[in-house]
């Protein structure tokens, strides 16, 4: 099997060109349009036995479809002396004279571009294709023959970060971002193409990934990153200690703004942005306000990058189920998604009965992000005093978000609109909502003299503690018994589908 065809295919191409292949391929293999899909559905049956499966082939010389398993395409080739056929599942060419499939570069290029076209017509980004080096990449590989095999206890990807004077809040956020699996895949695949590299935070993060995975172990300084964030998020400028959560959100915001000069607008994405940050971090929060007089529901859905969770005792909890302060992440989430009475002093005009009424409000997860970031509100700021809540809040290694989904929690799947009908690849009944912990940021010590550190997961189940320039091995138990300020979970199963996030 070579990639320059065979004499028979070459003769055929010399006589008839590549048009016959192009037509068959675009209609019956890839189906590059809705019209082609209809034709494929109706006509792709074996002309002899009427099956639609069993390795259906199309004759390249005439309009004949035949299956291979029961020998009907072979029969046709023999009686008509039409010795070339196209496999209708994969688009490969079978030469009966050579007795095998043959590959031809020119036709492979046609196939490749038609697969892309087909994916586009289905609003899928691109079909999966195994990585093939481009000419430049092949050249780079030749010039750099040293390869590194990643073994089980490899520490590649780990580097300490120098503290530039209370910049531990930045260091720990950078560690969490660098160890976000999908973000790493994006940057190591060199996917950011930039209009303005010198002022771009995404480029700087891209550069950081290169540094982290260069194999060097010396700690890094983040001067440039800090400078870029200061210029683009002025409220964070200055060397004093900052809140890691605020810094995290500001960083996502700057990255999102720099991601693409012209953001791609995608209708289904609540943030109306399809940049890598929104693809990974954006979820949709549903808010249902229910009028107590007429039970009319008004629903809104807002995008979020993280969920901030209260730790104090539930204030004004509705009626009998007033409970003590939460002791676990699940408690917090249960409380976050509980229907809450807005009180008699906060009457809202109901859009249904048009009068001012008392109402309840409930928040639920309409669409889950790939990375779920939870912020435990340990810092209480009030006019009297600022204080830190250091109570232990347990959090699991594996988290299932199913109980907090909109359709589960309140039965309201936003059924007022047709959008709620299950779309392709998005069926609420089967969706898997399990997450796995991959980073935890801790605030140690008091409000004034505190210090931030991070636990990060590397290579599936290895944990490390990042304390500025120091990286040490940690046990899962250390992670799960730590205080926890920001918790980062990664979705275990990714959905692929039309207009879906990936």
């Amino acid at each position, binding site marked *: 099997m070579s990639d320059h065809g065979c004499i028979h295919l070459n003769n055929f191409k010399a006589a008839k060109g590549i048009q016959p292949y192009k037509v068959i391929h675009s209609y019956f293999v890839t189906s590059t349009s809705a019209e082609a*899909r209809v034709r494929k*559905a109706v006509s792709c049956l074996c002309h002899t036995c009427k099956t639609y499966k069993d390795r259906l082939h199309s004759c390249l010389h005439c309009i004949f479809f035949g299956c291979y398993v029961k020998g009907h395409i072979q029969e046709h080739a023999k009686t008509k002396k039409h010795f070339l056929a196209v496999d209708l599942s994969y688009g490969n060419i079978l030469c009966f004279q050579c*007795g095998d499939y043959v590959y031809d570069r020119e036709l492979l290029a046609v196939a490749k571009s038609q697969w892309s076209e087909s*994916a586009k017509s289905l609003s899928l980004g691109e079909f999966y294709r195994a990585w093939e080096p481009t000419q430049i990449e092949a050249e780079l590989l030749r010039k750099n023959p040293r390869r590194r095999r990643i073994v089980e206890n490899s520490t590649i990807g780990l580097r300490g970060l120098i503290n530039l004077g209370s910049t531990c809040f930045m260091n720990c956020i950078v560690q969490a971002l660098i160890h976000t699996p999908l973000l790493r895949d994006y940057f190591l695949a060199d996917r950011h193409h930039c209009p303005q590299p010198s002022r771009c935070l995404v480029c700087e993060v891209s550069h950081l990934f290169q540094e982290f995975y260069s194999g060097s172990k010396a700690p890094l300084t983040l001067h440039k990153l800090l400078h870029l964030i200061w210029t683009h998020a002025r409220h964070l400028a200055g060397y004093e200690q900052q809140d890691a959560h605020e810094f995290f959100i500001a960083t996502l915001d700057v990255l999102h703004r720099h991601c693409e000069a012209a953001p791609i607008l995608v209708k289904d994405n609540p943030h109306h942005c399809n940049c890598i940050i929104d693809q990974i971090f954006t979820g949709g929060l549903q808010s249902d306000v229910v009028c107590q007089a007429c039970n009319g529901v008004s629903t809104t859905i807002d995008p979020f990058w993280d969920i901030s969770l209260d730790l104090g005792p539930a204030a004004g909890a509705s009626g009998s189920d007033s409970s003590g302060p939460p002791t676990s992440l699940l408690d917090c989430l249960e409380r976050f998604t509980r229907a809450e009475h807005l009180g008699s002093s906060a009457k809202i005009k109901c859009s249904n009965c048009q009068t001012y009424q008392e109402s309840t409000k409930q928040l639920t997860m309409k669409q889950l992000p790939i990375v779920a970031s939870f912020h435990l509100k340990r810092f209480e700021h009030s006019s009297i005093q600022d204080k830190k809540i250091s109570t232990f809040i347990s959090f699991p290694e594996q988290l299932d978000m199913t109980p907090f989904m909109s359709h589960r929690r309140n039965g309201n799947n936003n059924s007022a609109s047709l959008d709620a009908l299950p779309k*392709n690849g998005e069926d609420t009944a089967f969706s898997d909502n399990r997450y796995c912990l991959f980073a935890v940021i801790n605030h140690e010590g008091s409000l004034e003299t505190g210090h931030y550190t991070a636990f990060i997961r590397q290579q599936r189940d290895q944990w490390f503690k990042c304390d500025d320039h120091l990286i040490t091995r940690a046990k899962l138990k250390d992670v799960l018994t730590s205080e926890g300020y920001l918790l980062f979970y990664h979705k275990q199963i990714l959905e*692929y*589908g039309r207009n879906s996030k990936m």
Partner: protein
Amino acid sequence: MKTAPHQRLVMAGDRDVLKELLRRRLVECGWRDQVKIICKELIKENGQDITYDTLLSMVTSRARSLVPDSVKKELLQKIKNQLMSQEESLKM
């Protein structure tokens, strides 16, 4: 003409979408790499000139048995859902 379920899946593009999901799941779980290694070894043992059909007959049952149950289950469920929602929209 009455269209068969299979034809409806092709027409709506669902078949391509489901096939892509399957492809990605098989890549994710390492199935693709496993099968690639098996094929490479068979080619080494049997020589470069081994035909596609011979390779296929030696690899198919092994490759099938390597597909994780979770992947089969997910695909089955999704095909079912897709056909059911098509049925629903036909009724409307």
